[in-house]
């Protein structure tokens, strides 16, 4: 069965760092029903990690898992989900996952593995070497204390330049909950670096010489890949360019498709000018320039090229070269990253004198990337920076830190917006130096536990963007009304879901979005114009369910949820529609296991509900609705006092959100009163074993008095 199924590499590798044992098991026999990625991660934690296990306990496991489509030619593949008991989750650690792109996923599959489960704890620093079937636990004492770059370089020298190295920096070694693991320079998974550190695991390096076997017809596969390329937009599946062009009826100045003909990658040698038809499928990589999107047109002159994950034509990790940064701050002149990683340095400053798109801003971003991606510090989707801003300006830091420590920090540089401030602050946090480093390296949870700041202090204040459980919002009501709110209630860290926001920010006119919404979710009322929200309805609840399921599917197939799903396209000839069954078509062709959109979505739902059960089991809480699926107070406020549903506010209405949650639980087949999955839902999804266990724990509806 295993060898007859395409797409899968075939095996899951298990390394016990306590005993040194290395073993494998068949992916298909053991994990087919949860696909891969987060699915395998959740299943391993459910089966093998008891409730109450701490993030840094040796009993915790860390699962690096990719999926069927990783390492193939499917656009936007190459993602690895890293699932574990998550250390920044407050008030107690619960299941969570970080996701990294780069080349790690493909290499792991080429080596013959769909996933790597690491368990136990080594008695000294080690790294894991995977070269096809040869797996070794190696001594890492010489690497301990080094940054991610040095560790990667040293290991690559030994394994060969083609290997992928996922390493932690000093933050992870020092058990900072706010630590990353990173591969391929800038592709990181947040929050899991400290778990690796707790196991004395410096890095996992993998080199594979095999290939991914496709079960289906190769011609059909090629045609589908070509079709997929044709419906891609720019980064985040923004399907209209940011500029008017003869080839497009629509444009949106806010689009991430910024690669306009005439623009130049000015720091390439020699510089490259963007020419030709913006629709040319061989020129998709010119569409996205994250540096230019975040830092303004000035960044074009510093652009070398795009970089990205295996098989992804979007290449959103833009490489920039800024010699002035090297001269002024003594770091490398080259940098690369995207989104929150790119903004790491700039985010610390409340205001930069010359503005967010100035050269100073670019320097701050460069410096932040260099320091954080080497020391291995995570930003918790910008929460670290927002926390520092609030703590400094409201006087908390002055009150909490001793005078000596407080005075040792160059606050004058901070106030004047001098990027050199980061040379002090980022290492201070990553190295857990002093009271400030010890507390901030725990994430927002550290403020609540060490400094007796209440969660309410944060959840009342919109400026913090804080949502719950130690983590911020991730595209909530500010982008997508009730749909965004529902999605943000569901995880134990920030939601990391882009399915919904990729659609509402795609740049198409509202009327077109509503037509596509009617086709996909049953009614144009499934989507509103931003800030012109209408009351909750079942179509929004269905869209929220779809968004969550697709997120889990992407994370379990090795696809990028920062690009999918593909409901919309740039194609006028398709009435701007994409193809919502693309994932199932690729899955069928890759594996040879014929499925369709509904069936694959059911698998995604199974994975999502497994996460729900794991969360509930480890919380030991029958009432998830009021104890887990919470919404911060700031969501129900408006700075100008505007009423909910008035035009120009993102303020939500408490009763309406309660109704939205009712509708969501209904479409999920969960209990309305508690938000707990019903036995029927477990059975429908093939999770009878999970349901029975939850019932025995009295955590299913109606099992407690």
């Amino acid at each position, binding site marked *: 069965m295993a060898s007859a199924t395409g797409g899968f590499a075939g095996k899951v590798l298990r390394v016990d760092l306590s005993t040194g044992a290395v073993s494998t098991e068949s992916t298909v026999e053991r994990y087919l029903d949860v696909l891969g990625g987060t699915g395998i991660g959740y299943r391993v934690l459910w089966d093998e990690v008891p409730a109450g296990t701490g993030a840094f306990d040796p009993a915790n496991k860390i699962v690096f898992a990719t999926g069927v489509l990783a390492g193939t030619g499917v656009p936007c593949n190459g993602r690895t989900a890293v699932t574990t008991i998550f250390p920044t989750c407050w008030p107690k650690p619960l299941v969570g996952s970080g996701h990294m792109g780069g080349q790690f996923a493909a290499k792991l599959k080429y080596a013959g593995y769909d996933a790597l489960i690491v368990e136990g704890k080594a008695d000294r620093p080690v790294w894991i070497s995977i070269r096809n079937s040869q797996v070794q636990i190696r001594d890492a004492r010489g690497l301990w204390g080094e940054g991610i770059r040095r560790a990667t370089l040293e290991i690559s020298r030994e394994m060969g330049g083609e290997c992928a190295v996922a390493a932690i920096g000093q933050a992870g070694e020092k058990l900072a909950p706010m630590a990353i693991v990173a591969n391929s320079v800038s592709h990181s998974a947040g929050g899991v670096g400290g778990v690796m550190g707790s196991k004395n695991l410096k890095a996992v390096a993998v080199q594979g010489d095999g290939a991914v076997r496709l079960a289906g017809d190769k011609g059909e596969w090629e045609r589908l890949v070509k079709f997929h390329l044709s419906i891609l937009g720019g980064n985040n599946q923004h399907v209209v360019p940011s500029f*008017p*062009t*003869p080839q497009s009826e629509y*444009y*949106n100045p806010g689009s991430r498709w910024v690669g306009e003909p005439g623009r130049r990658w000015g720091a390439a040698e020699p510089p490259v000018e963007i020419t030709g038809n913006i629709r040319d499928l061989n020129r998709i990589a010119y569409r996205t320039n994250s540096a230019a999107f975040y830092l303004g047109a000035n960044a074009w002159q510093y652009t070398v090229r795009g970089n990205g994950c295996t098989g992804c034509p979007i290449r959103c990790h833009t490489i920039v070269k800024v010699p002035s940064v090297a001269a002024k701050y003594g770091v490398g002149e080259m940098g690369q990253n995207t989104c*929150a990683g790119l*903004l790491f340095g700039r985010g610390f400053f409340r205001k930069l004198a010359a*503005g967010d798109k100035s050269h100073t801003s670019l320097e701050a971003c460069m410096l932040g990337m260099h320091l954080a991606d080497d020391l291995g510090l995570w930003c918790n989707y910008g929460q670290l920076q927002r926390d520092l801003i609030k703590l400094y300006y409201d006087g908390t830091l002055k009150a909490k830190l001793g005078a000596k420590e407080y005075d040792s920090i160059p606050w004058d540089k901070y106030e004047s917006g001098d990027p050199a401030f980061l040379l002090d602050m980022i290492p201070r946090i990553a190295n857990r130096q002093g009271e400030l480093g010890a507390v901030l390296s725990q994430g927002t949870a550290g403020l609540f536990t060490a400094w007796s700041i209440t969660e309410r202090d944060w959840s009342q204040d919109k400026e913090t963007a804080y949502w719950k459980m130690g983590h911020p919002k991730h595209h909530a009501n500010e982008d997508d009304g009730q749909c965004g709110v529902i999605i943000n209630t569901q995880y134990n860290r920030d939601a990391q879901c882009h399915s919904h926001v990729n659609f509402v920010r795609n740049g198409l006119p509202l009327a077109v979005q509503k037509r596509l919404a009617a086709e996909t979710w049953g009614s144009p009322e499934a989507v509103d114009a931003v800030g012109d929200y209408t009351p909750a309805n079942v179509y929004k609840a269905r869209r929220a369910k779809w968004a969550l399921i697709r997120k889990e599917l992407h994370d379990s197939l090795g696809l990028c949820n920062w690009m999918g799903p593909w409901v919309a396209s740039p194609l006028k000839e398709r009435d701007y529609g994409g193809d919502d069954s693309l994932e199932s078509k690729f899955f069928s062709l890759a594996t040879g296991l014929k499925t369709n959109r509904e069936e694959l979505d059911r698998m995604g739902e199974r994975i999502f509900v497994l996460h729900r059960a794991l969360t509930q089991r480890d919380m030991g809480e029958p009432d998830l609705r009021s104890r887990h699926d919470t919404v911060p107070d700031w969501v129900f406020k408006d700075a100008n006092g505007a009423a909910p549903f008035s035009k*120009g*506010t993102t303020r939500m209405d408490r009763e309406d959100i309660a109704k939205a949650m009712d509708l969501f639980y209904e479409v999920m087949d969960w209990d309305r009163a508690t938000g707990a999955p019903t036995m029927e839902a477990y059975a429908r999804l093939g999770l009878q074993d999970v349901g029975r266990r939850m019932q025995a724990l009295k955590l299913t509806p109606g099992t407690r008095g």
Partner: protein
Amino acid sequence: MNSAGEDWEEAAAEAVREASRQGRAVSAAEVLEALAARGFDVTSPDAGEKAEAALRAHAGLACFAGADGAARYHDPALLSATYAGIMDRKASPTLLMAEEIRANSREYPRPVPVELFEAEPFGLTPEQIGDALRAMAENPAFEDIAFTATSTGAVYLFSSRSLEPGYAKFLAEHAQNLAMNP
């Protein structure tokens, strides 16, 4: 037909396509000029009307009213109506800006940053933009064109026919924050 045996209607359509490839929508008069250059007899008094009728009937072509009121033809597969309209109005910065602001407010709906008009294909100088805004402020035909400023001082333009000022302000702030909300 001309001496090369080309069909008149097809040659007229090809003239439109050729202009579309170059990023321009064309009037029937321009099409007749192109036909004359290819050896067609376009001297009959009803040639203009004939050309208009043929172009309108052509399934692959589209037309819109140009800035001078005359019909403009283009092939939408080669040249979008949006882009064709922008190119058609380029001679009048005031009209160019006003129509673009109105279309954005009406269709998406959204206000647009004033810098949009400095970029291609608009390509206006800051002076031209300033002049156009002043001209609009003084002309009742443009009384719907308004501006709003974000908390960071960025200026956005909108049409009050489609957007209320408060909502325009919200949308401008939202647009300005996109890059800090990845």
